């Protein structure tokens, strides 16, 4: 495409403005996390008075960060794996098989995506309380309740994206295997899943990010033992003060793995979202 000087100026200005807008908070995040506490209080300084990695040491003892991290990892990883299994199973018939109620199912699942979380937070909490009395399983304040909630949150988009990926795979592949006597499920596991691996990875990261960043339900469904990072980080703030350097050091630490994972799969995420979008 031919570039006019006007377009070059437009591009230069756009990218400069957006870079500054994007980088400023990230700069504050990084620079504050290596400042000593007395340098964080009072007038903000662009450059640290001195650089210290003490916040990265102290953050573990100020609050039980390791426990919150473990809780988040347990809940998020379990929910992600289960969501993948359930979504693969549901997406395959949507992409390949004909059955009554298919359209109803896919429309219902997708429309749950637009429900405001606040609408079913309380009813779900009440159902969990009731379920505890009936079944004797602890659902509030336990990993279990949080896991099935997050697993379900990730489902609509995961099913949508996976169905898009599966549709893009030529049907001849598994038909050949089935004529050789493999069952549908066998063909799915041995033929389709390996081919769809990039898409599955992207869906896994999407489910992980959804659960890792959830705040609203974590605030109601966890207790002091099972609290996840999204709620636990608040404890760096006391009645009178916030330990900003430790808080931002902890924030940076728990964000890095997610950002790296996202960057690795973002191409597949986009193709999946748009494949689902035009379906």
């Amino acid at each position: 495409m031919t570039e006019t000087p006007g377009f070059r100026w437009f591009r230069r200005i756009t990218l400069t403005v957006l870079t500054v807008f994007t980088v400023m908070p990230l700069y504050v995040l990084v620079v504050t996390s290596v400042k000593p506490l007395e340098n964080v209080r009072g007038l903000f300084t662009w450059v640290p008075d001195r650089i210290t990695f003490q916040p990265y040491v102290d953050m573990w003892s100020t609050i039980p960060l390791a426990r919150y991290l473990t809780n988040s990892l347990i809940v998020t990883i379990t929910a992600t794996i289960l969501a993948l299994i359930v979504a693969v199973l549901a997406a395959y018939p949507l992409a390949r098989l004909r059955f009554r109620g298919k359209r109803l199912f896919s429309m219902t699942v997708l429309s749950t995506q637009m429900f405001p979380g606040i609408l079913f937070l309380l009813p779900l909490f009440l159902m969990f309380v009731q379920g505890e009395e009936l079944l004797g399983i602890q659902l509030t304040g336990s990993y279990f309740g949080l896991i099935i909630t997050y697993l379900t949150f990730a489902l609509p988009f995961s099913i949508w994206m996976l169905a898009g990926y599966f549709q893009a795979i030529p049907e001849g592949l598994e038909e050949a295997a089935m004529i050789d006597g493999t069952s549908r499920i066998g063909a799915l596991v041995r033929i389709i899943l390996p081919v769809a691996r990039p898409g599955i990875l992207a869906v896994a990261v999407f489910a992980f990010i959804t659960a890792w960043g959830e705040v609203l339900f974590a605030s109601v469904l966890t207790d002091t033992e099972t609290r996840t990072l999204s709620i636990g980080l608040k404890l760096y703030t006391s009645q009178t003060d916030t330990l900003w350097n430790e808080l931002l050091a902890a924030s940076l630490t728990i964000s890095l793995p997610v950002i790296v994972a996202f960057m690795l799969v973002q191409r597949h995420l986009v193709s999946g979202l748009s494949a689902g979008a035009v379906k």
Partner: protein
Amino acid sequence: MSTTEEPRSRAAEEDPPGAAGPASGPRRRRLRRQGVLLPYGMVLPAAVLELLIHIIPMILGIYIAFTSLTQLTIRNWTSAPFVGVENFVRGLDPSGALGSDLFQSLFRTAVYTALVVGLSWVLGMAAAVSLNTKFRGRGVLRTLFLVPYALPVYVAAIIWAFMFNHRDGMINRLLVQDLGLLDDRPFWLIGENAFWVLVVVSVWRLWPFAFLMLLAALQSIPEDMYEAAAIDGASTWKRFTGITMPMVRPANAVVLLVMGLWTFNEFNIPFLLFGDTSPDSARLISPLIYEHSFVNWNFGLGAAMSVLLLVALIIASAVYVRMVLPKGSSND
């Protein structure tokens, strides 16, 4: 759009809708018959979970909207007194305190949604158009722009809350000390300014999503369309309005709908910036419902307001889908 037609037409060839069954050999027929229950078995786990975690709670929520459930009756919530439409009457009466609060909040949320989605779209489109050309450093910028979206939302909110801090924050340092635009350090997270803080933080989080999706749409436009237009002497702006915009229309329709719904329901950012109770200027609808339910312990009222919100969203989405989404992709 070609990707949508392909699988469907292939399926149609194989299995014409008029025929009682596929006429393609006994083996295949046997496979089909064995598999009648298979699809149901495969979607069952997803269906059960959706039912348990989404559908039943929603129906229960509608029921709660007709009861006077409070902190007194919460332990034994099934026996909370049924009060009919009282919650709706009290909550929605525009002349009452609750109702006027609610309608103000709905209006505020609509303005907030229009601003956040509009700005995010403009930034995302400008970045996508810029990065859809070849120059040095393109890959780095592309990755950088996605960071705010990949960041957990609570981390984004924590950083911005620190930046907008009255005493220690970067924004006040920049505006007062460095640029000298203001004489006194303003408060950002309380009072009238809080609304604008909310808009800025939300745009920062959301625009990379628009960028990501629009860039993917732009990359699927064939290069020679632009070259042909350039030979015809079309200006850059003409090419944008004449080729780019029509070509990204399907992607646009989905992106705007998804971003609109997310933004209208936004809870995390105000909750993380302001806590349990948002300042009046920035009280969006989801935090308002949270406040009625979990701060004032009036669950029935909160549920009634949620039902109203849901109905509003369904109507808005239905109208949107009818008007904007291209006919071919919305249904078959």
